[in-house]
C-alpha cells in the first residue's frame, strides 16, 4: 500500500517537475504566468518527492515488508500503529495537494524495536543483512530529526497565526534560527532518504555478483558514521548566511569527513562485484546506475563542501544538479532496483526482463541529459528557484528540458511495466535469483504469506560470519 501511495505521489511530484521544466525550457514566462505558483510548484515538488515518494516507498513499503522477512520475524512490532501511520500519510498527501503545504512523514521508532527485539536466534547484529542495518540507521535518524522539524514547524505556525515571534525580526525574532532548525532536520533528512537505498544496493549487488558483500562490517559502520556525522554538518547549507568565519571552517572540515565513509561504501560495492560472476538483470543495472550517479553527485559535493567555492556555487543550478544526482535520482534508482528485485516476492509475479532493461536505459539517459547540463548553468551563475532566467542561459535549459521529456516518458513506461507485471507476469519462484540470493526473504514462498516465519528460522552459523 505504501508503494501504491508512493506511485501516486510520484505521478503528482513528477508531473510538477515536468511542469517546472516546461516552464524553464525557454526564457520568458510561458505556461505559468504567476511566479507565486511557480514557487509553490517547486516547494510542493520537493515535499512530495521527499515525504510522499521516497520515504513511504523506502521505509514504509520496502522497509515494512522486508525487514521482518529478513530478520525472521512474523511482522513488524506494533502493527496497529504501523497501519494508522499509513492512513495519516494518505490524509496528509490529500491535504498537501489541496494546500501545497503540510507536515508529514511516517513515524518510525518501531523499526528500532522490531530490529532489536524480533531477530531470529543466531542472527546477531553483525549478521543482519545490510538493508536491515540501513533501515535501523534511518529509523534512528528519523527519531532524532523529525521532532526538530515538528518543533520548528510548530514555532512557524504559532508565529504566523498566534502572534509569537520566534522568527520575526520586527518583534525581536530571528529568521536565521529557522534556518538552523530547518537544516538540523534537513541534513539528516537527506541521509534518511539515501541510506535505505545504500541497503538496497548492497543486497542487489551481492545477489547478482553471486558474492557476499565485501567488507561487511565496514559497510555497516560506514552507514552508522554517515548517520552520525549527518547531524553535525547542517550549517554547510548556510555558508552565505553570514556565519562567523571560524564556524564555517569547522563545517567545512566536518562536511568533508563524510566523504570518507561514502568512499568506503563505493569501493566496497566495486570490490563486491570484483571477482564476481555478474548477471546484468534489471535490478543490477539500476544498482550500477546508482553507483555512477552517487559518485557524480559525491564529487560535486566535495566541491560544495568548501565554503570558498560555495561563494560561486551557492544557490545556483550547480546545487540543483548536485542534490538531484546524489540524493534524489540516486534514491529513485535505489527504489527501481528494489522494485525489480523484490516485486516477484511481493506480488508473486515476475516483471519482464526485456521491458525492465529498456526502462533502465531510457531512464538513465533521461536523467543524465536532464541534470548534467545544470552543472554548466550553475557555474555560469544561474540562480535556482527562478521562474524566468536571462536569455543567455537558454541553451542548456533547453537540453535539460528535453532530458525531462525522456525521463517522464521512461516513467510512464515504468507504469506500463507495473501493469504488465500484474496482469501478464510469469509466476515467480520462491527464489528467482539463484545462488546469489542468500537472505531470509528468499526462503519463503512468493508472494510472501501474511504472517511469515511463524516457526523461528535458525540462523546460527549462516550469513557473513564475522
Amino acid at each position: 500500500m505504501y508503494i501504491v501511495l508512493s506511485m501516486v505521489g510520484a505521478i503528482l511530484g513528477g508531473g510538477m517537475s515536468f511542469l517546472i521544466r516546461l516552464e524553464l525550457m525557454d526564457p520568458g514566462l510561458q505556461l505559468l504566468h504567476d511566479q507565486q505558483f511557480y514557487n509553490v510548484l517547486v516547494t510542493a515538488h520537493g515535499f512530495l518527492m521527499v515525504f510522499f515518494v521516497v520515504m513511504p516507498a523506502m521505509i514504509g513499503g520496502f522497509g515494512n515488508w522486508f525487514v521482518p522477512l529478513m530478520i525472521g520475524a512474523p511482522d513488524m512490532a506494533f502493527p496497529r500503529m504501523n497501519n494508522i501511520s499509513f492512513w495519516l500519510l494518505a490524509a496528509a498527501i490529500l491535504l498537501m495537494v489541496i494546500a501545497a503545504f503540510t507536515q508529514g512523514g511516517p513515524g518510525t521508532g518501531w523499526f528500532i524495536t522490531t530490529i532489536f527485539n524480533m531477530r531470529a536466534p543466531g542472527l546477531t547484529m553483525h549478521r543482519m543483512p545490510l538493508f536491515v542495518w540501513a533501515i535501523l540507521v534511518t529509523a534512528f535518524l528519523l527519531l532524532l530529526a523529525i521532532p526538530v522539524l515538528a518543533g520548528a514547524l510548530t514555532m512557524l505556525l504559532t508565529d504566523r497565526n498566534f502572534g509569537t515571534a520566534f522568527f520575526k525580526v520586527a518583534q525581536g525574532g530571528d529568521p536565521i534560527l529557522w534556518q538552523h532548525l530547518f537544516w538540523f532536520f534537513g541534513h539528516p533528512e537527506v541521509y534518511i532518504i539515501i541510506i535505505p537505498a545504500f541497503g538496497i544496493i548492497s543486497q542487489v549487488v551481492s545477489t547478482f555478483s553471486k558474492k557476499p558483500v565485501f567488507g561487511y562490517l565496514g559497510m555497516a559502520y560506514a552507514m552508522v558514521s554517515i548517520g552520525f556525522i549527518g547531524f553535525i554538518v547542517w550549517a554547510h547549507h548556510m555558508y552565505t548566511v553570514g556565519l562567523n568565519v571560524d564556524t564555517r571552517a569547522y563545517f567545512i572540515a566536518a562536511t568533508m569527513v563524510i566523504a570518507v565513509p561514502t568512499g568506503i561504501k563505493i569501493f566496497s560495492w566495486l570490490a563486491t562485484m570484483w571477482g564476481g560472476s555478474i548477471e546484468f538483470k534489471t535490478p543490477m543495472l539500476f544498482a550500477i546506475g546508482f553507483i555512477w550517479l552517487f559518485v557524480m553527485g559525491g564529487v560535486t559535493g566535495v566541491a560544495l563542501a568548501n565554503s570558498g567555492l560555495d561563494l560561486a556555487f551557492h544557490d545556483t543550478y550547480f546545487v540543483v544538479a548536485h542534490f538531484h544526482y546524489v540524493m534524489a535520482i540516486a534514491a529513485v534508482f535505489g527504489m527501481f532496483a528494489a522494485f525489480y528485485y523484490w516485486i516477484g516476492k511481493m506480488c508473486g509475479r515476475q516483471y519482464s526482463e526485456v521491458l525492465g532493461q529498456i526502462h533502465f536505459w531510457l531512464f538513465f539517459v533521461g536523467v543524465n541529459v536532464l541534470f548534467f547540463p545544470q552543472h554548466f548553468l550553475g557555474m555560469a551563475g544561474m540562480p535556482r528557484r527562478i521562474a524566468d532566467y536571462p536569455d543567455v542561459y537558454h541553451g542548456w535549459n533547453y537540453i535539460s528540458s528535453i532530458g525531462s521529456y525522456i525521463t517522464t516518458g521512461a516513467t510512464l513506461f515504468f507504469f506500463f511495466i507495473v501493469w504488465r507485471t500484474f496482469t501478464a507476469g510469469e509466476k515467480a519462484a520462491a527464489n528467482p535469483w539463484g545462488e546469489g540470493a542468500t537472505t531470509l526473504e528468499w526462503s519463503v514462498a512468493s508472494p510472501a504469506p501474511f504472517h511469515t516465519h511463524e516457526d523461528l528460522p535458525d540462523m546460527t552459523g549462516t550469513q557473513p560470519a564475522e
Partner: protein
Amino acid sequence: MLKTMRFLAPAAALGGVFTARDALAGQGLPKPWQMWFQEPASPVMERIMEFHDLVFAIEVAIVLLVLGIMAYIVVRFNHKANPAPSKNTHNTLLEVIWTVIPIIILVVIAVPSFKLLYFADKIEKADMTLKVIGNQWFWSYTYPDQGDIQFDSIIVAAEDLKPGQPRLLTVDNKVVLPVDTNIRLLFTSNDVIHNWAVPAFGLKLDASPGRINESWVRITSEGDYFGMCSELCGVNHAFMPVHVQAVSKAKFAEWAAAQKKAAAGGRNDKFKVVQAEKPAR
C-alpha cells in the same frame, strides 16, 4: 512574448538564442552555452577559480577511476567471462588504503580551502564602504563615504529595454564603483532574507533583516557586471538583478560629485532617497 507554441518548435527556439546576443556579453555576463565560470574580475574570484581547478582535477580523477573499475568489472566479471565467483570478502590492506587515501586527498583540499575562506571573509583596511539593502523586490544602495548618496535600483521591464540591454538583468539605477579600490560591503534587508550576488566577483552574501553582514570586493577591471538575487525572497525573486558598473577612480569621483550636487540641489527625482513603491509586476 514567447508563446507556448515554441515548445513544439525546438529548432526555431534554439535559433532565437543566438540572434539575441547582446553587446555586453563577455563582461560580467555569461555567454550562451557557457559551461564554466564567468571571467573573474576580483582577486577572490581569481582564487576561487584557481582552487576549483585543483578540486575539479581531483573530481575528474575519481570519476574516471570509478568508471574505469566499473568498465573492467563489466567486461571481466560478467557471468559469461567468469562463471565461478570468488568468495573473497576481505582484504584489510585494501580497506585501509581506501580509507586513508581519501583522507589524504581531503587534507590536500582542505588546506587551500581554509586559506581561501579566510581571504574571502573580510578586508581589514577598506578605502570606501557601500551599503546594500534588500527590499521586496529591489535593491537600495548607500555610499556613506560619498556624502550618503542613496538610491534604489529597480528592474527595467522587458518592454522598456533599449537594444543591447539584457532582459531580466537591466536596472534603472546601476551601482557605480571604482576599480582597484578595496570596497567594504555591508548587507542588510528591510523585509525578508535576500542575497546579493555577482558571480564575476565571487561574491554572494545574504542580506538578512535585523543583521548586518560584511564582505569586500576589489574590482580589477572596468566594465559592467551582473548578478541576481540568490535567496528565494518571494514572488518576484527572479526580478531583482544587480548591475555594477566599474569605472576608473577619477570617473567615480566625478560621478559621486555629480550625485551629491544633484541631491543638494533638490534635483533628486532620479535617485529617490525615500522608499520607492513596490514595482508593479
